[in-house]
């Protein structure tokens, strides 16, 4: 006849089925289950008794954990994970695109409006003769626009050089156009505050025809 378990061993098994063994005890228990066939066999017998009485012991108040279907992320099917990941990527991409769109002045409606206005102010200006011996016939506004176009083509157009140009310019029409170019340059580099400062100057200038336009742009930027 096979040897029955001792009370100490029964207590150990009881605690195992009660899920109360610590990590070390559990590791030792598993090891013994693997190496000691007799112990393994007796645990199996005790298991029958345990599960039988566990059913008898069940109280009506016990929640039905068998029906508790996981609803958190951990319980999601793989395809749902994929859909979730793709949705997150789409949101991130859209957000990044939108953020960049707003960061890129070229895509801002205000910038487009200023650009269009500067082009309009600068249009119709004919460059002087390329012949160095010919007499200069350009007006101050033409000279300023030519200078700014040259800088633009050379890639050296910046607010600093434009400001220098403005400081040396006395002609009202030329100053008006230069200031709008400065506004455009600030908006292009997303320097809204300085753009607004220049627009305020334009708006306050009684001799400018574009004062109202500056106020309109300022209001759009607020």
């Amino acid at each position, binding site marked *: *006849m*096979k040897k*029955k*378990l001792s009370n100490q061993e*029964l207590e150990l098994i*009881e605690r*195992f*089925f*009660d*899920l*109360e*063994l*610590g*990590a070390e005890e*559990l590791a030792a*228990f*598993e090891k013994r*289950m693997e190496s000691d066939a007799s112990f393994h066999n*007796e645990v*199996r*017998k*005790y*298991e*029958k*008794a*345990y*599960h*039988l*009485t566990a*059913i*008898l*012991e*069940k*109280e*009506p*108040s*016990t*929640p039905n*954990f*068998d029906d*508790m*279907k*996981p*609803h*958190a*992320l*951990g*319980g999601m099917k793989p395809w749902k994970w994929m859909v979730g990941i793709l949705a997150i990527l789409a949101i991130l991409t859209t957000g990044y695109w939108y953020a960049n769109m707003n960061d890129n002045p070229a895509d801002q409606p205000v910038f487009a409006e200023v650009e269009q206005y500067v082009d309009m102010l600068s249009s119709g200006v004919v460059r002087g003769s390329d012949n160095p011996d010919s007499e200069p016939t350009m007006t101050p506004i033409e000279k300023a626009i030519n200078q700014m176009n040259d800088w633009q083509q050379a890639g050296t157009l910046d607010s600093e050089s434009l400001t220098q140009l403005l400081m040396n310019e006395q002609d009202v029409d030329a100053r008006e156009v230069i200031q709008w170019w400065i506004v455009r340059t600030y908006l292009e580099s997303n320097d809204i505050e300085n753009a607004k400062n220049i627009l305020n100057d334009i708006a306050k200038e009684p001799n400018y025809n574009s004062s109202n336009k500056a106020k309109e742009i300022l209001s759009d930027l607020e």
Partner: protein
Amino acid sequence: MSHKYKWNEAFERAFNGDRRLLDEHISQFYNSKLYPIILGRTQSRDTAHEVCSVTMTKFWNKFYIKRDALPDNVNGYIYAMANNAFYQVVGMKSKERDFVNHLKETKILEAINGNSNNMEESEAGQMENLYKALELGFAQLGERCRELLNLNILQKQTIRSIAPKMKFPTENAATQKKTKCIKALRKLIYSEIHNQD
């Protein structure tokens, strides 16, 4: 707020008749903490669900039914319980558990009441041995345990109604007694199963 404080508050309210917070807390812990961890180990949703179910049922019995004092680290304690359950479900690959679970409570009660007509032959054979062990074990229990289990399990009376009848000072005292009786019955059944070999 610490885990223990949250669990304490939830159990306190449940003991006072409002189980909503405890149910919510258990459901949240089950779904967002325990299940994902176990799923990572089992790589099978069904197995993970079984491990979690065994763990939480035992947790419920211990701390709600028996009202044992909560440990300092409740979440850690549950994870340790789940470790045990993981080995029971995955490591032991238990045919015994499957068999007893398959019988379900109603069939066991039918057998206890001497009616196993609805069982299949193979089930009936195994059940007969189990029932004999149960019957012999039950007969060896003390009189007070027999009365308590008879009223609660066979006559399906609640512990609340049994407690005054059997002159227990409190309902909890009756619950504690039932736990001890079940444990004693378990050892007696094991002894009988051992002797059947």
